[in-house]
């Protein structure tokens, strides 16, 4: 179980570092994107399900900030944040969730499958654990060509109990591939608290069973996440193999749109809200008298998200005949 963390952790105690405004901007873009998606669902404008990441923004933002464009990333159905952090345009993300022709996937994928290969966001997967071996494969390509590109797989705490996790870490380690396995430990798999499904306290400890380094980091401290990722990425780039990172964070909302999250112990949400990753970074920036001030960053992000939503809302529905395309590339 996560240790009780102080409101600000070591990396932010001395104030925010250079580049903090960019990190904050990304977190706000994601937060406001997710709030908007929640609103779209609540208003019945989207059908199906959606899995949001409010409160977890520091993980994907810190992680993706350590990557270069040619590095690749895979994530889960709870991947809006990660895909945005890797560089996907907000309007096409909204468009996909709305099922529009101009969505990232032309409306074929939806909320659980946001993918933008052009920015290295190789896919959001709706099968728990299934994208880990796929990231191993992307790392293999890098190593095959000696490119030095790194591949990152972001997944939940619950995913550490499925077979694909095990096979992926083992094979990546045997082959010393440039891949980082990043656990976004938001304390729950659906409605099950981690301790009810997992017999150890620190998921990063599983790294030892694969002969790779295991790192633990405060997942609400974007600067700390960034630092631990940079180190892991640097190791991977020079051929020193994979790393398993556990970033502790909290899902401030329900598992999916229909979940009121009544299973949370009293007070738990409040404790984590007090450590909201955006608040933590904003406070540190304010303490250091940052320019631009955090409020400006928020305002700009809000404007950007609003404009993106408007563009997405104007995108046409896909042509029904388009459902027959993209099954095969070559003629079938």
């Amino acid at each position: 179980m996560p240790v009780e963390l102080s409101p600000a952790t070591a990396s932010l105690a001395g104030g925010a570092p250079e580049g903090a405004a960019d990190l904050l901007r990304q977190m706000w873009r994601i937060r406001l994107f997710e709030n908007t998606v929640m609103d779209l669902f609540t208003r019945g404008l989207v059908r199906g399900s959606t899995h949001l990441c409010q409160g977890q923004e520091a993980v994907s933002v810190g992680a993706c900030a350590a990557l270069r464009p040619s590095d690749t990333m895979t994530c889960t159905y709870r991947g809006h944040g990660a895909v945005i952090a890797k560089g996907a345009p907000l309007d096409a993300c909204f468009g996909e969730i709305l099922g529009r022709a101009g969505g990232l996937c032309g409306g074929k994928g939806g909320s659980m499958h946001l993918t933008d290969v052009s920015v290295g966001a190789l896919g959001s997967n709706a099968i728990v654990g299934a994208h880990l071996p796929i990231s191993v494969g992307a790392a293999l390509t890098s190593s095959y060509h000696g490119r030095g590109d790194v591949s990152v797989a972001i997944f939940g705490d619950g995913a550490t109990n499925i077979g694909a996790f095990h096979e992926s870490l083992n094979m990546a380690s045997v082959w010393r591939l440039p891949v980082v396995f990043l656990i976004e430990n938001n304390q729950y798999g659906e409605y099950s608290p981690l301790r009810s499904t997992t017999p150890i306290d620190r998921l990063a400890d599983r790294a030892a069973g694969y002969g790779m380094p295991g790192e633990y980091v405060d997942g609400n401290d974007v600067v700390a996440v960034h630092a631990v990722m940079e180190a892991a990425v640097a190791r991977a780039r020079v051929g020193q193999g994979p790393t398993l990172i556990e970033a502790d964070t909290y899902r401030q909302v329900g598992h999916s749109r229909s979940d009121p999250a009544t299973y949370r112990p009293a007070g738990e949400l409040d404790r984590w809200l007090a450590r909201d990753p955006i608040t933590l970074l904003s406070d540190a920036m304010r303490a250091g008298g940052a320019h631009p001030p955090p409020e400006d960053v928020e305002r700009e992000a809000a404007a950007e998200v609003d404009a993106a939503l408007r563009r997405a809302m104007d995108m046409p529905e896909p042509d029904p005949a388009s459902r027959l395309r993209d099954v095969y590339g070559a003629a079938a």
Partner: protein
Amino acid sequence: MTQINYRKVIAVAIADAMRADPDVFLIGEDVGAAGGAFKTTAGLFEEFGPRRVRDTPISEQAIVGTAIGAAMTGLRPIAEIMFADFAGVCFDQLANQLAKYRYMTGGQVRLPVTVRMANGAGAGFAAQHSQPAENWFLNIPGLKIAVPGTVEDLYGLLRTAIADDDPVLVFEHKNLFALKGEVSADTLAIPLGKATVVREGTDVTIVAIQQMRHRAAEAADQLAAEGISATVIDPRTLVPFDDEAVADSLRRTHRLAVVQEAPHGGSWGASLVARMTADNFTLFDAPPLVIGADETPVPYSPGLEDAWLPSVSRIVSEVRKLVTW
């Protein structure tokens, strides 16, 4: 008896089975304290406690394998695989273990395992959460397959599956959760392999399950208004399959249409047609028809998914053509 919906009747059936037999237990992800991802098992944990209602890690291979080992040693497990699509991550346990264990051991073990899975398209869950996955299991002898399409059939087949000494996969269609019905004493006794005739007609036999059973019935209503009289048959289980019910109707209608949610290749509908044409060739006055989905994964966008699934109007127009063939 009071009205109840397809979603809620599941917990009723399981509870009744658990009360009747102390060896019955439920295992799956979030089936307990949370009452199930679809709230289909609400209340069971409160009544039966953690010994008999077991929340698992996200480990489908371990869920099904544990059910197999428990069944082999005398228990009667009900395993939930949340979405039928996730059968992919435990397919070996279903196809190579559960289906074959009795046979490989020369009948040394019984495997009274019920595997419940939420199935089907139409709710905007996209390609990895919407497949009509019942078709994955048709070429795997050793598994019985139930595909209830009404509240009554769901209750009855679930009870029968749990009581059966063989593995039964029970597909619960997630687009039918809101469907209402009544559970009476009769429903207890729905055997595997017994079709139900949804409506009787003389011009064409339409066979359909789950969501498509309802669309077929609606299409039949519309066709009736045009003077076309259709029988609609719901086989309710795919293995065993009530071929005789279909043949019996064919003897009157001489025309067969299967309506299914799945693409054609390797589907139960195609298999049914092949059996019928082999065994009852002379009964056919027109080509047998399979009305199914496109040969593509399930698309996400509502417009695309709606176009993908056979609609009532498509059923009407294809059956109309068949009848005038």
